[in-house]
């Protein structure tokens, strides 16, 4: 059914009635349900069987004919992927972590029917001596501010009504009927929003440039080609709240005068693709996409385009080439896409997270948006926190929050009592930040000043067991593989840098290698065609700056302090050995000798350094040096 302007609020009000238990946007204590079970169906939790858990709950509820009093809701990512699969029970927001399929029976019987939360299944940090903390008050959630992720974990992403109930498409209504395109652009400009895909270019200016070009053929593109390894912000937004991106793109179309949009998304994200397809279809059915949207004079269409596994397609000119059906190779700028983009027409390209902020800005105003964040980087940023950190997951914090707060207050610090070594931001284009810089506030300019970059939002924490030379080698290997080969500094420069880094990790590094690396890095930085090559050396330069001692140890002493680089380590059995013979039995080359109940010895010449002995030792007596 095509909706008219007035239908939006009516549907929202009708829908909110049954969302009464979920606590947002406002508490509605009255309603049809007595309990609500919220199940995360993001990629992480679904991979650990949250789909089966959901089915189990539905089966149990159906068997007792309790469908009218207990609702089961599928949502996007809650954020704390480490605790997945995550199940939350309302009222109360009881937070169950690492739920197994069989646990559904216990939660159903004891909590949903018996009204007694199942303490042993609750997320440990939420259990206090004198009570249970709701999900919204555990330390991980408490220290965040969710704007782009405002609906993730609260609404069913496959139901447009629930998005409407959370104020969805109201910004669009306001824009179409009460604002001129110029006023929309002015508001976005005033908000100070900057490109959250990593570049940090002022969004309002981008809109202005594209709008200034004569039409009629223009395009709006959403860059959802989230290629940074270890980053899953955009995926989570699209999986948890796809309509927000659609709404923002329609608004952008209205503002710049475009009638057609494309979302370019990675094919590696099947759930996000599926949810987007559903959301687009729903929006079309509701008349929110198509001709004369909500009865206005504005028409807009949206299509999905799938990437095919090429990192460089995250670069906007390469992305355009890929949508056109060509090899995804970047080209020189200018002309910028705002002047000549898709099929040579003016094209506006923004990233998923940037779009996710647009409805909020237009609904609440630029001034309200600016209350969060810093003067030059207003608003929030979503990070995918991963690696050696306790609370792996998705976090959204105000700009200006320090790295330390993210790593320790929200991330919960380093697990297993290990020491923090570095945090990597910006993926293959970013840098490694050492412990001494942990108090740097997170914003576009501060991160750049310390040799890293905001990037799309991947944040990987490394501990004492990670070798920084090996990390630099890892990123260079990635870049070499993903370089499109169009320009020489990137194609050849990254390969030569990789060869040098491999040599160093292999114990064959020479003193002059550092100078060679630096010279190649500067050349690639200054002479490459696109950002991929220009930033390719950042992981090398930043590790050289902060962890020079590790490079020196590899080169001069032929030693890998972290014990990662295979050629430079040897295994050794300490006094702690209890002589259980497990290592000797598991060694693939039988190089461990020893009798039962006596300390074993490794023949270092025969050892192939596979590390299996260390893995199987029950008393941690095998160490690597």
């Amino acid at each position, binding site marked *: 059914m095509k909706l008219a302007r007035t239908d939006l609020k009516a549907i929202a009000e009708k829908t909110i009635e049954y969302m009464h238990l979920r606590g947002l946007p406002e508490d509605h204590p009255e309603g049809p349900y007595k309990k609500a079970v919220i199940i995360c169906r993001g990629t992480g939790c679904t991979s650990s069987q949250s789909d089966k858990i959901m089915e189990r709950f539905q089966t149990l509820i159906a068997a007792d004919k309790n469908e009218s009093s207990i609702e089961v809701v599928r949502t996007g990512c809650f954020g704390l992927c480490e605790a997945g699969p995550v199940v939350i029970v309302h009222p109360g927001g009881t937070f169950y972590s690492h739920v197994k399929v069989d646990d559904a029976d216990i939660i159903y019987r004891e909590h949903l029917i018996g009204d007694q939360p199942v303490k042993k299944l609750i997320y440990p940090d939420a259990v206090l001596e004198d009570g249970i903390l709701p999900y919204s008050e555990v330390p991980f959630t408490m220290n965040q501010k969710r704007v782009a992720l405002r609906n993730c974990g609260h609404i069913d992403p496959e139901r447009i009504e629930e998005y409407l109930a959370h104020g969805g498409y109201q910004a669009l209504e306001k824009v179409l009927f009460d604002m001129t395109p110029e006023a929309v652009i002015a508001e976005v400009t005033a908000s100070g929003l900057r490109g959250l895909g990593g570049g940090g270019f002022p969004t309002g200016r981008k809109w202005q440039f594209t709008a200034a070009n004569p039409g009629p053929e223009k395009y709006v593109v959403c860059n959802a080609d989230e290629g940074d*390894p*270890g980053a899953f912000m955009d995926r989570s937004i699209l999986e948890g709240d796809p309509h927000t991106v659609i709404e923002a793109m329609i608004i952008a179309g209205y503002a710049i005068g475009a009638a057609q949009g494309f979302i370019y998304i990675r094919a*590696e994200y099947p759930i996000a693709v599926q949810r987007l397809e559903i959301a687009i279809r729903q929006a079309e059915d509701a008349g929110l996409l198509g001709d004369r949207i909500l009865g206005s004079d504005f028409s807009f269409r949206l299509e999905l*385009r799938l990437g095919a596994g090429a990192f460089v397609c995250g670069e906007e000119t390469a992305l355009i080439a890929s949508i056109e059906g060509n090899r995804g190779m970047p080209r020189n700028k200018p002309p910028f896409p705002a002047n000549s983009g898709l099929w040579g027409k003016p094209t506006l390209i923004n990233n998923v997270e940037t779009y996710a902020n647009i409805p909020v800005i237009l609904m609440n105003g630029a001034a309200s948006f600016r209350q969060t964040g810093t003067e030059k980087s207003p608003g929030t940023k979503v990070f995918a926190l991963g690696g050696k950190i306790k609370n792996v997951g998705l976090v959204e914090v105000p700009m200006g929050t320090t790295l330390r707060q993210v790593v320790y207050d929200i991330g919960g610090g380093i697990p297993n009592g290990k020491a923090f070594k570095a945090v990597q931001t910006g993926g293959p284009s970013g840098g490694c930040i050492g412990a001494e810089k942990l108090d740097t506030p997170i914003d576009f300019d501060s991160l750049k000043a310390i040799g890293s970059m905001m990037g799309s939002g991947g944040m990987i924490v490394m501990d004492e067991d990670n070798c920084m030379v090996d990390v630099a080698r890892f990123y260079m290997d990635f870049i070499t593989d993903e370089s499109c080969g169009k320009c020489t500094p990137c194609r050849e420069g990254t390969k030569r840098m990789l060869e040098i880094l491999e040599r160093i990790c292999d114990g064959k590094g020479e003193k002059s290698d550092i100078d060679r690396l630096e010279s190649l890095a500067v050349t690639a930085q200054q002479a490459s065609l696109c950002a991929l090559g220009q930033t390719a050396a950042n992981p090398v330069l930043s590790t050289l700056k902060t962890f020079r001692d590790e490079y020196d140890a590899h080169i001069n002493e032929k030693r890998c302090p972290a014990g990662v680089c295979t050629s430079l380590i040897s295994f050794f059995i300490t006094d702690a050995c209890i002589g259980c013979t497990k290592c000797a039995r598991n060694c693939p080359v039988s190089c461990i000798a020893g009798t039962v109940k006596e300390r074993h010895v490794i023949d270092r010449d025969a050892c192939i350094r596979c590390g299996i002995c260390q893995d199987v030792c029950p008393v941690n007596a095998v160490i690597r040096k």
Partner: protein
Amino acid sequence: MAVTFDPNEHKEALSEFAATLDRLRGRRGVLMQALHEAQSRFGHIPPYVQELISDALDIPVSMIYGVITFYARFTLEPTGRCEIGVCLGTACYVKGSARLIEDIEKALGIKPGQTTEDGSFTLTATRCVGACGLAPVVTVNQDVHGRMKREEMKKLLAFLKKEYADMAAEVAQ
């Protein structure tokens, strides 16, 4: 292994694919869509299919070949019945996924990107699958195995080897 694509064995898939091509005909920028469709239908994009696409979309085969070889998800040769992917995204890498790959290489005798002689297994070093909370991640066809340890990998491989050896034997008959 050299595989020839026999259109007679794929009659049904080919007629469905022809319908897709009809739908895409005359529209611009649809080559990638056609290639995605071909890849998922045939498991690879053989010259025969490239020519079909070329005729339907009026794009030279040389250009189609260029696009196929540019993107990691398009392949010219068929992948194994069981595709084992080890995520080499940063989160998985710092948690030791490189060692998992080494173990699989040894167990199957293939390097990433290769397929075993009998066509059972393909090993791929995948880009970030975005399940960083489960690092290190190994995928087996569509299934995701999270928080993998070397010991578990060993068991999983033993299980898969047996399962697909039976299947390969059936195919051979």
